[in-house]
C-alpha cells in the first residue's frame, strides 16, 4: 500500500501550542510519527546569566503558563538547598496549598481540552466552569490568576488569613461536588469510552523504558509520583499515587480525574495542618559554588531543575527538564497503529505543554 505523508500541526485546532508531527499513513492507519519542536523557544535558561538568583523566580514561573507555582517551588527549593536555608513550616504548607490548587486547575483545564479533542464541547465547558472557582481562589489569595508570584527564596510572600481559609474550604467543597457530578460522564459515558478505551495503548514496560512521566506513566500502571519523595510539606500529608493499569487514553484521563479529587483532599489536609509561624527565612549572600538537582511533581509529571552556583549572584547554569519532553518518546510509541482520527486524542492525552518543553 502507498504511504501518504500528512502534516499534523504546528497550528492545529486541537493543539493549544505549536508542535509539528509528520505522520506517515497507510490508508487511515498511522505507521510512523516524526516530531519537530522549536517553534516557541524563548531562551529562558540563558537568562540566568544576566538576572540575579532572586529575579530568576519570576523567570522560572513563566516557563509554564499553567503550573507557574510548581516551577517556582522547584527553583526555590533548589536554591534553598544550595544555600542551606531552612524554610519555615508555614511557608512549606502554603506552598503545598497553592501547588495543589495549581494541579487542580491544570487537570480541570486538561479534562476540558481532552473533551474538546473528541468533540464533547459541552463537557469541555462544564470543566472550565468548575475551574473558574480555583482561579478565583488564586486571584483572591495571591493577586493573580495563573502567574501567582508568591515564592521567594526562603519562603513565600503572601499569607492566608483565617477568613480566606474558611472561604477556600467552602469553595473547594463546591468544586469537589461539581467535579464529582461529571465523574460518570468522563469515566463511563458510552461516547467518551468509544473514543478513549483501547486508544493509544502504552504498556507498563514501554512506559518505564521510554521514560514516561506523570499521569502518562501512572496510567500505564507504574506507581511513581515525585511527591512521595516528601519534599516541602508533602512528608506530613497522607496520600498515595493514583494508578490505572490499562495504559490507554481512558486510563490517562481517569488518572487525571482522580488526581483532581486527590489534590482537593490535599488542600484540605494542608489547611488542617497549617502551622503558625514566619512566612520566609532571611537569605543573605549569594549561592555558593556547587550543584543541586531538584525533582518535583508537576501536573504533567516529574520536573527536574539542575542548578550550578559559582559564588556570585548569577548562576553558572540553570537546566530545566520538563515532563512533556519526557513524554514525547512514549507518544511516538503510542501513535503507530492508531487511526488518523485518533491522533488528536492521543497527542492531547500526554497533556503536551510545548512552551515548557522548549523554554
Amino acid at each position, binding site marked *: 500500500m502507498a504511504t501518504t505523508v500528512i502534516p499534523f500541526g504546528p497550528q492545529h485546532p486541537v493543539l493549544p501550542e505549536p508542535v509539528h508531527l509528520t505522520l506517515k499513513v497507510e490508508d487511515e492507519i498511522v505507521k510512523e510519527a516524526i516530531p519537530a519542536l522549536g517553534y516557541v523557544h524563548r531562551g529562558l535558561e540563558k537568562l540566568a546569566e544576566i538576572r540575579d538568583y532572586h529575579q530568576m523566580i519570576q523567570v522560572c514561573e513563566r516557563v509554564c503558563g499553567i503550573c507557574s507555582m510548581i516551577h517556582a517551588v522547584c527553583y526555590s527549593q533548589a536554591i534553598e538547598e544550595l544555600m542551606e536555608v531552612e524554610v519555615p513550616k508555614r511557608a512549606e504548607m502554603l506552598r503545598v496549598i497553592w501547588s495543589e490548587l495549581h494541579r487542580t486547575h491544570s487537570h480541570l483545564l486538561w479534562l476540558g481540552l481532552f473533551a474538546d479533542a473528541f468533540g464533547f464541547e*459541552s463537557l469541555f465547558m462544564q470543566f472550565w466552569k468548575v475551574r473558574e472557582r480555583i482561579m478565583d481562589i488564586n486571584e483572591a489569595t495571591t493577586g493573580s490568576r495563573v502567574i501567582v508570584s508568591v515564592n521567594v527564596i526562603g519562603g513565600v510572600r503572601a499569607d492566608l488569613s483565617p477568613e480566606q481559609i474558611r472561604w477556600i474550604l467552602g469553595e473547594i467543597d463546591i468544586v469537589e461536588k461539581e467535579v464529582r457530578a461529571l465523574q460518570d460522564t468522563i469515566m463511563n459515558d458510552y461516547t467518551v469510552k468509544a473514543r478513549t478505551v483501547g486508544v493509544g495503548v502504552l504498556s507498563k514496560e514501554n512506559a518505564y523504558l521510554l521514560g514516561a512521566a506523570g499521569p502518562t506513566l501512572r496510567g500505564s500502571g507504574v506507581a511513581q509520583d515525585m511527591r512521595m519523595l516528601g519534599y516541602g510539606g508533602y512528608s506530613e500529608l497522607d496520600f498515595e499515587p493514583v494508578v490505572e493499569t490499562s495504559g490507554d487514553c481512558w486510563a490517562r484521563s481517569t488518572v487525571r480525574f482522580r488526581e483532581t479529587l486527590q489534590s482537593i483532599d490535599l488542600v484540605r489536609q494542608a489547611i488542617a495542618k497549617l502551622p503558625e509561624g514566619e512566612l520566609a527565612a532571611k537569605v543573605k549572600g549569594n549561592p555558593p559554588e556547587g550543584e543541586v538537582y531538584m525533582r518535583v511533581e508537576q501536573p504533567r509529571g516529574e520536573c527536574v531543575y539542575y542548578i550550578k552556583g559559582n559564588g556570585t549572584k548569577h548562576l553558572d547554569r540553570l537546566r530545566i527538564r520538563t515532563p512533556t519532553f519526557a513524554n514525547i518518546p512514549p507518544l511516538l510509541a503510542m501513535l503507530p497503529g492508531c487511526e488518523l482520527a485518533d491522533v488528536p486524542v492521543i497527542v492531547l492525552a500526554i497533556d503536551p505543554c510545548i512552551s515548557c518543553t522548549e523554554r
Partner: protein
Amino acid sequence: MLFTPTVIKNLLKKPATRLYPFTVREPFPNYRGELYIDIDACIFCGTCARKCPSQCIEVDKEQGLWSCDPHACVYCGICRDTCPTKCLHMKDVHRKPMTERIMMVEKGEPPKPKKKAAEAAPKAEAEPKADDADKGESKKADAKKK
C-alpha cells in the same frame, strides 16, 4: 445519557457567564493590577529598578526621574514590596488595552546632597512649594510616546 442531569440543571439555572462589558465582576482587593507611583514620597533610591525581574524601571537620581515601561512590566509586585518608602502601589484592576506604545515618566524633586543641604536650605524651602501645584497636572501629561 450520563450527561443528561447536567444538561437539565444547566437549563434551569441562570447563565454561568456575565455579559462582560456591561456587567463587570468586583475586583479582588489584593489583585496586582496597574502599577503607579506616588512620586512625592519617592526618594529615588533605585531599589525598585534593581529588584525588578523584567528590568522595566529606570530611576535617575540626579534629575529626579522615575520611568517604567508598562509593556515590559510583569506585574509581580516586587518593586511595591521592596520600596523603602512604600510609594509604589498597584491598582486592583488591570491596565486597559492601549493603541500606542507609551512610557510612564514621573518627575519629582531629587534629593539634595547631604553636605550642601544646610547651605542651600533657604532656597530649597521656597522651590518645592512652587513645584507642588504643577505636579498634580504633570502626572497625566507625563505619559509620553516612546
